[in-house]
């Protein structure tokens, strides 16, 4: 599983998998493989949401000097 992929990346990948699955003109093995990947990705996404913690960066700017 790609640990570095962002939530959005994973969601985009999921979108690709779903549309591929919906096409229906792929071999059964491929469909099963795609489904497997999709299940793993949704689990990864859910984990990312569970673990998500906002990152805050403060830029003092020039306001501090004035």
């Amino acid at each position, binding site marked *: 599983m790609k640990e570095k992929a962002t939530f959005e990346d994973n969601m985009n990948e999921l979108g690709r998998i779903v549309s591929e699955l*919906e096409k229906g003109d792929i071999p059964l093995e491929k469909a099963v493989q795609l489904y497997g990947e999709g299940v793993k990705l949704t689990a990864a996404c859910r984990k990312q949401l569970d673990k998500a913690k906002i990152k805050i*960066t403060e830029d003092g*700017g020039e306001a501090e000097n004035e």
Partner: protein
Amino acid sequence: MPVITVTQINRYIGSILKNDRNIQGVMVRGEISNYVKHFRSGHVYFTLKDSESAIKAVMFANSVSRLKFEPEDGMSVIVSGSIGVYERDGAYQLYVNDIIPDGAGAAGIALEQLKKKLQKEGIFDKAHKRSIPPMPKKIGAVTSLSGAAVRDIINVLSRRYPLGELYVVNALVQGEAAANSVCRGILKAEAAGCEIIIVGRGGGSSEDLSVFNTEKVAYAIYNCKVPVISAVGHETDVTIADLAADLRAPTPSAAAELAAPDIALLYEKLSGIERHMEKAVLTFFDKSVDRFTTLNARLLAQSPEKRLKLTDERLLMLETRSKTAFLRYIDRIERDLAEKAAKLDSLSPLKVLSRGYSLVYNEEKLISSSESLENGDIIRIIFGNGGADAEIKDKW
């Protein structure tokens, strides 16, 4: 001395006033009193006064409808209009086009002028408004680090959208240097890679909003390469920053809500995708099973067993048919034969004898006339049943 009518004198005075530039297109400062709005026509009548003097004023409905506030008795205002004569009463009065609250003073007038200018320059154009990215990775906030706005934004985003990064640029939101500070803050947030920027401040109506009413900030928002949400935190006044922004939020908290989706929606979306995938793969299986069933049925139809059976059946059928045909043929021959035999039987001489006729032979020769007989010949008679030999005694 010529005598003239009242109407003539009023009309004459009216024409003199109309031609006096000093009292056409004037701005008059004063306080509103006896304010009356005619309920049917929508025209407004009031007296404008100062400490020493008063003048009657009228504002027609079409001008009244353009006012952004409701004038009241006691309000200090600057009205613009012209002096004219109301001939019926012989009274001169102020015909008002516009009323500006005097509280805002020159700043208020300047603000209105700036709004009009920026409007003309297309800064507020709807066509220029950009849409908010659906899942921003980095959200910028340009506001005072010591203000309430930044705390509200952090609270909302921590709860609703902890996925992203919040990049807060400290900016002065009050005072002379505020406009430049906010502009630089927007540029910094943009340079830091923010996909959306919240610009604003918290607080109530009493706070100074002037920085958000500057041309500089309007242009900084307009020129920003990523969408900007204004969050000036003022419910009644719409600032120029609000008009220039891609989205206007009533408060910094609301701006944070507009900037990013709620994590609950993302969980829902994930579940939706899961269901979707399951359905897609099940449909896929169903289709595969259907295809297999159809193909299998077609395959079985072509199996050697099935074909042998088919050949067998045909053979059997052919056999039966040939057997029947043969039997019918035999039958016909038999019937033919029996018919012929019956005919043959009826023609047999023996059959005639049985009816009493007899056959006469002379030395193996069948006799049909007495001429071939001589007296003394021995003849043989054959009856239907048995026979006898006899001698000819007398032939005739």
